[in-house]
């Protein structure tokens, strides 16, 4: 029987990790869950955000979280442009599923190779005061490099949730995910709204990237490890449900943390699949979503 405080530590570490996974999955919850755009390349944009953070941090000494927020602007523009291309080539032609998937897979691959060619295949990390410091509460150890990403991620999630439910644009985004035709009848262009929403989804990748590089050193191909996790969180949570996605991310984080601590860290990437497959097979609506 392992030590109870070790279990507690593993669970808390898992919750913090899950909070960070939610930041990665958030963009997919928007793009895939709401807009029905299977953006497999999202984790590659997260890694791109991590490298942008590394550049800003190592050359100008800007705080990683701040540089993530700074990069959100350019990433938003990038997202809008990417959506325009996707729409022109696939969505409007009506061959979205097959070609679109391959398209995003290609983007994933290209981004990765371009990062290797420009920044090299080495691991990169950032400097900040809170990296390497831990809070100790009783027998509980909370490394700040995990706490800061958790807080930022939850903040981003809450902010977006407010934006989507309160603002006109936000509600239009929710509407486009439910009934495109009705939106058109209200005089709103679904394509414009979708471009905006996809821009936001890529902007969250910039922030998630800065959180990733706070948590661990980053190399270009690391994004692949997050594809399964992030999509599992979105599907398990129920497509389009933010809270479901957050709960699923945290469940994933806790399970991975316990398995890594008690058993073997090399199994961690397989856990997401262990959740994904049964969810798809038996409960395709996820925890808090509509049936697919």
């Amino acid at each position, binding site marked *: 029987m392992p030590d109870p405080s070790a279990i507690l530590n593993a669970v808390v570490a898992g919750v913090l990790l899950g909070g960070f996974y939610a930041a990665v999955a958030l963009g997919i919850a928007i793009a895939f869950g709401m807009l029905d755009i299977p953006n497999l390349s999202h984790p590659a944009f997260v890694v791109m955000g991590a490298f942008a953070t590394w550049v800003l941090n190592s050359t100008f000494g800007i705080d990683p979280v701040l540089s993530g927020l700074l990069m959100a602007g350019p990433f938003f523009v990038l997202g809008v442009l990417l959506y325009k291309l996707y729409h022109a080539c696939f969505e409007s032609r009506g061959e979205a599923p097959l070609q679109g998937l391959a398209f995003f*897979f290609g983007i994933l691959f290209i981004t990765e190779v371009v990062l290797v060619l420009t920044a090299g295949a080495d691991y990169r990390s950032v400097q900040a005061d809170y990296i390497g410091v831990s809070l100790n509460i009783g027998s509980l150890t909370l490394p700040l490099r995990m706490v800061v990403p958790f807080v930022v991620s939850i903040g981003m999630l809450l902010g977006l949730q407010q934006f989507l439910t309160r603002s006109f644009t936000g509600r239009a985004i929710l509407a486009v995910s439910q009934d495109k035709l009705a939106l058109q009848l209200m005089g709103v262009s679904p394509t414009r709204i979708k471009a905006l929403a996809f821009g936001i989804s890529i902007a969250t990748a910039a922030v998630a990237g800065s959180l990733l590089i706070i948590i661990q050193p980053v190399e270009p191909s690391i994004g692949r490890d997050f594809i399964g996790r992030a999509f599992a969180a979105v599907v398990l949570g129920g497509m389009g449900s933010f809270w479901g996605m957050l709960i699923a991310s945290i469940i994933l984080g806790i399970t991975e943390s316990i398995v890594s601590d008690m058993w073997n860290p090399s199994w961690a990437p397989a856990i997401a699949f262990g959740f994904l497959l049964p969810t798809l097979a038996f409960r395709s609506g996820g925890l808090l979503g509509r049936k697919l």
Partner: protein
Amino acid sequence: MSNLRFWASGLLLVLVGWLLGRLVSNEYAFFAGYSVLQYILLATAWNILGGYAGYVNFGTAAFFALGAYVSVALNKLYAPPLPVLIVAGGVASGLVGLLMGSLTLKLRGVFFSIATLALAIVSQAVITNWEFVGGASGAYVLRPRQGPLGGSYIEYLFYTMLVMAVAAVALARTIERSRFGYGLAAIRDDEAAAEASGVPTLKLKLLATVASGTLMGMAGAPLPFYVAYLDPPSAFNLAYAVNTIAMPLVGGTGTWIGPVLGAILLTVVQETAMVTISSAANLLIVGLLMVGFITLAPNGIVGMVRKIREGRR
């Protein structure tokens, strides 16, 4: 191309390959030839599900590496002849395809694709933790000096791959022109309409997944002997998945000739780029070609040729 001409040229190709092999003394020719044929086999296998039915499989590396690792394991236990290993690898990957398919094919194609992507990651974790086949540190496989038909073992591997590639293309062509193939095409074009018109969609999709997975496993089985040292990062290399998808898309997905053209073109381009530029750049070229073709020429080379021909008329 008429049936007779197709089968005759298939047979002729095998014969010519064998004769050329007898004349060539340079081992590199077999290594390069094997690599092209392996990709023709993989691309054709992918196309049966991806091109005919429109279900994108990102897990080529998983099916392929599973075949390779079944072969490593059996070779360590009993060292059976190569054809037995190929059958075993094919059966194992076919079964994984059946399991994956029966769990996810009821949903929209996107979910199947995501599940296959995750399959590649999970099977890599399993192999990395399976000490019997070398685990994370990899496995060395002793390649026999002589092939059973005379000549070097690499030459033997080349012929084996040649036969498998030609057989796979013939199978794909037969499927394409059968009721099975028409059913798959109906699924690709409009699954709901196909289901409504009485096409047993789930059954056909499952059958296509199993056929495609089996061929990929068979393609992987000789790999340990080809590379002599196999570790998870190289067996599960993303390059396999990307190439296998890029080749049919570049060549043209609807027909059997598309993956063949794509495989030949992309392997030649990559071999050239590897020598003249760098190995990272050659993967970039594949990625760019793939994205370029799906955005600008969604029907690949076959589609372009068809357009030019129609334009002339």
